[in-house]
């Protein structure tokens, strides 16, 4: 069933067009940025070769990109489900923060726990904390009718400050040069997937979550309800769909996914909680969900693309020495041009 659907989603007829336009968009973006690279006194060809090499040049680089993509996939899939139900959830940043916090707290509490169990427990703790934070936003939305954009945005700030506070206090490593927790017990670290690289099992979790979200959205009554809710409030009421329950569920689900992402960042990348570790993931999740067409399977290419682009661009910056701001320029331009090209081709396809 899934294989069939997957195949269909990527079938030549379905994916060739958006793929072609995405490539076109990327080309235009890189072309534009090349002028700036040139201005900065570097050779754009050399720079872009370095970008490519930095993205996929060695197994190690691929591992870096996949690790980067992991939180994007998890949060993107959750946000996509929310947006499907027309709930504009921009709260992934705070949910990641608290997910990482909960995972850290548990790992430091259970230093004796065995290696297989501890990461799982910590990820569950992360999921729980993220779900609570997402659910809190949903409750304020539902009970007090404050718009979810506002609630999730404000809760992001609060979530990040909570991390600051616990690192200042209880969970902070005494004497550390930066607000951070002590190193977590090694039993809590995520196992590596490929020896010799940093690739951890997080990417498997992320891909599994994406596929699960796909099934939930397209193959379950719950997903159907989300889609109806997003498409027409009046019809949802008429179909007997409880907006409150669906909103709460999907926000908690997305929160849980973000929480897991936070736990994975802590357990797989940093091995400790660090102030600011969640920065920027919330908006990245929104971008990836939307570029992925609000379809979890669409999040897969979008999230991976972001992971590879980012790791490639940073590697390029380091290798060729183009000014760091150009990394942001390339990212921003790529997003805009890819979107525009894809939207244009979609419009053409419709006519």
């Amino acid at each position, binding site marked *: 069933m899934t294989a069939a659907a997957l195949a269909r989603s990527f079938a030549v007829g379905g994916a060739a067009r958006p793929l072609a336009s995405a490539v076109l968009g990327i080309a235009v973006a890189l072309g534009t940025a090349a002028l700036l690279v040139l201005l900065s*006194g570097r050779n754009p060809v050399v720079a872009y070769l370095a970008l490519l090499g930095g993205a996929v040049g060695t197994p190690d680089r691929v591992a870096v990109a996949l690790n980067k993509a992991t939180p994007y996939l998890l949060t993107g899939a959750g946000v996509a489900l929310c947006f499907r139900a027309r709930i504009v959830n921009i709260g992934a940043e705070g949910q990641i923060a608290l997910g990482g916090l909960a995972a850290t707290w548990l790992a430091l509490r259970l230093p004796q726990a065995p290696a297989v169990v501890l990461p799982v427990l910590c990820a569950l703790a992360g999921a729980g904390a993220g779900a609570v934070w997402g659910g809190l936003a949903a409750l304020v939305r539902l009970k*007090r009718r404050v718009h979810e954009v*506002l609630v999730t945005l404000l809760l992001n700030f609060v979530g990040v400050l909570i991390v600051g*506070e616990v690192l200042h206090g209880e969970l902070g490593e005494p004497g550390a040069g930066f607000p951070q927790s002590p190193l977590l017990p090694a039993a809590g670290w995520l196992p590596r997937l490929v020896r010799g690289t940093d690739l951890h099992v997080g990417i498997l979790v992320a891909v599994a979550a994406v596929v699960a979200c796909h099934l939930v959205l397209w193959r379950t009554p719950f997903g159907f309800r989300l889609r109806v809710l997003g498409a027409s409030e009046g019809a949802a009421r008429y179909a007997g769909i409880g907006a409150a329950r669906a909103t709460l569920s999907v926000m908690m689900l997305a929160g849980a996914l973000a929480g897991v992402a936070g736990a994975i960042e802590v357990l797989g990348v940093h091995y400790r909680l660090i102030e600011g570790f969640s920065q920027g993931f919330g908006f990245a999740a929104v971008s990836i969900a939307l570029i992925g067409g609000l379809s979890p399977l669409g999040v897969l290419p979008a999230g991976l693309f972001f992971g590879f682009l980012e790791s490639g661009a940073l590697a390029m910056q380091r290798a060729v020495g183009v*000014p760091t*701001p150009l990394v942001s320029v390339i990212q921003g331009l790529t997003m805009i041009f890819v979107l525009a090209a894809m939207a244009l081709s979609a419009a053409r396809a419709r006519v």
Partner: protein
Amino acid sequence: MSVETALVELLAAAVRIATPLFFAALGGILSERAGVFAVGLEGMMLAGAFGGVLAGHLAGSAAAGLAASVAAGVLLALLVAVATVRFGADQMVTGLAVNILAVGLTSFLLRGFAARGEAATLRVPVLAAWPVPGLAEVPVLGVVLFRQPPLTYAAVVFGVLIAVFLARTRAGLTLRAVGENPAAAFAVGVEPARVRLAAVLACGALAGLGGAVLSLQQVGTFTDAMTNGRGYIALAAIIVGRWLPGGTLLGCLLFGAADALQLRVQSLRLPVSSYVIQMTPYVVALVVLAGLGRSARLPAALGTPFRRE
């Protein structure tokens, strides 16, 4: 220090913090009421802040700085408008992308223009306060309202103009209709794309001025990413104010007051860390809004591209 002076101080601070937010929010109101998410406010503000300092520095005049702030905001808005209105790219992602782009581009250009890739600093004199003769001497209100630098007065003027424009003119009605139901507007002879283009450009101009408040009026220099999330706060203020200039002004002031309060509460030596106290503005905003419990309705076509058959 007396309670009264403390209060005056607090209100004056609230006005200062609110001013850049309000400019950006006004722009956001125009854009969103025409149906285009104003997620790019942050980037447009930053562009405005940068353009203002750069031109102010090169031309040596505040007027040139302000004009360049507007131009820079409009330029970025043009990118948003073309991508979203002409091509139908997703508005939210375009906005986020523009914000990323603005950070990189301003930083890159600053070095390019000022120092060939090295660390650079541009400095311009800040816009001085213009006390309103007579009114400035009124106790309390005089300090809070009538001893302001020019852009603060301008913000108020723009607020009134935009409120009137939206409520009382046919063009304003058209703009609102495009944000609610572009098909219906199209059916009475309106070109939704043109309206949206104009609204987004106006948004860029106002957000650019918001950036100018930061760089030209408050700090007198440009530093990388100096808007620091104010564009997002402005977006929040718009929702608080339900897409009305008056309400949005209150939203900005609420946030300004909470932030000003936070700074002052830190001086009280409470038994909590600054991290907790820094939550004040956000928690206050949440609690106040939850207390009011009034729902906000987005313009119905916000975020939806209009394509004719």
